[in-house]
């Protein structure tokens, strides 16, 4: 058995875990910390927001060891190129690094990305020296364009953010994997462990999720389930599944049957 484990490479960094987790929606900083530890993730997303001037000054970063994790600041909530670019610049100045998850939302109800604006913002940020990981729709042409302008990876959504609908169009993900030579990371839509496995079985480099873990009845248990599911799915991909066939093919030999 080939026990060699391939790592996930993003920019100039290598990650043993192919699971990237968000830090939102947890009940407390303590639960966030525990869920992330259990998930085994080494890359974690954070949002950039105004400091509440007169409130409790505790910060999520007091609870997450920066030596253990690579932060992936996002531009969640940005609806314009300008806001997304400025958010990334602020994240870099705040010491969160230069790998950024660019999202420019185009529709409030579906939280689908504005692909045109995402491409534009990505272009500006690549020029400014960022490693850009754009959240985008599962569109082959767009993903190729994002690769062409120098994005480090593409992050097509599997289903709307927080919907838990799973991989709605695995065929598009397959096509994107064939079309680009940069890592493809599934971003958004995973609901449960089997969704994560299925995504990994397609051959994607990694998966980013938040709500599926944080919103589960037992987030810590789900975090472990997701860790295992991502590992299983990746292993199955590397092992190479059998082709699908319409008809049966016996797995017991036909020779040597007793003659009754």
């Amino acid at each position, binding site marked *: 058995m080939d026990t060699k484990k391939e790592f996930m490479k993003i920019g100039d960094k290598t990650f043993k875990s192919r699971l990237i*987790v*968000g*830090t*939102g*929606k*947890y009940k407390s*900083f303590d639960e*966030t910390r525990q869920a992330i530890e259990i998930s085994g993730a080494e890359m974690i*997303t*954070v*949002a*950039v*927001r*105004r*400091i*509440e*001037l007169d409130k409790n*000054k505790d*910060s*999520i*970063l*007091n609870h997450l060891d920066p030596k253990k994790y690579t*932060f992936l*600041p*996002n531009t*969640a909530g940005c609806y314009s190129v300008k806001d997304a670019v*400025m958010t990334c*610049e*602020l*994240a*870099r*100045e*705040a*010491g*969160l690094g230069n790998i950024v*998850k660019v*999202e420019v939302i185009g529709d409030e109800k579906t939280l689908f990305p504005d692909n045109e604006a995402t491409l534009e913002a990505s272009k500006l940020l690549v020029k400014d020296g960022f490693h850009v990981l754009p*959240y985008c729709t599962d569109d082959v042409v767009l993903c190729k364009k994002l690769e062409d302008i120098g994005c480090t990876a593409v992050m097509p959504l599997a289903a709307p*953010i*927080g919907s838990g609908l799973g991989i709605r169009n695995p065929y598009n993900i397959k096509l994107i994997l064939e079309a680009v030579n940069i890592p493809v990371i599934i*971003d*958004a839509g995973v609901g449960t462990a089997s969704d994560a496995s299925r995504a990994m079985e397609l051959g994607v480099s990694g998966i*980013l*999720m*938040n*709500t599926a873990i*944080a919103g589960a009845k037992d987030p810590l248990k789900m975090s472990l389930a997701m860790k295992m599911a991502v590992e299983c799915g990746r292993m199955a991909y590397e092992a190479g599944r059998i082709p699908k066939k319409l008809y049966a093919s016996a797995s017991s030999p036909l020779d040597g049957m007793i003659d009754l």
Partner: protein
Amino acid sequence: MKLTINGENREILKSQNLEDLARELDIQAPNFAMALNKQVIPRSKYATTQIKENDQVEIVHAVGGGI
């Protein structure tokens, strides 16, 4: 001096630059960043970036977030 900080009107007593301002506001986040009048200011320039009446200041930090 009146400033707009994170969208709120604030009266600032003694700060002359962004470094003073962060101290006066008791910003303790381990990582924070500042923008002055919609321009992101590099951390190394907080002490030399002067603030004046009616300036708009944004002070941000990392919070829990996913996608």
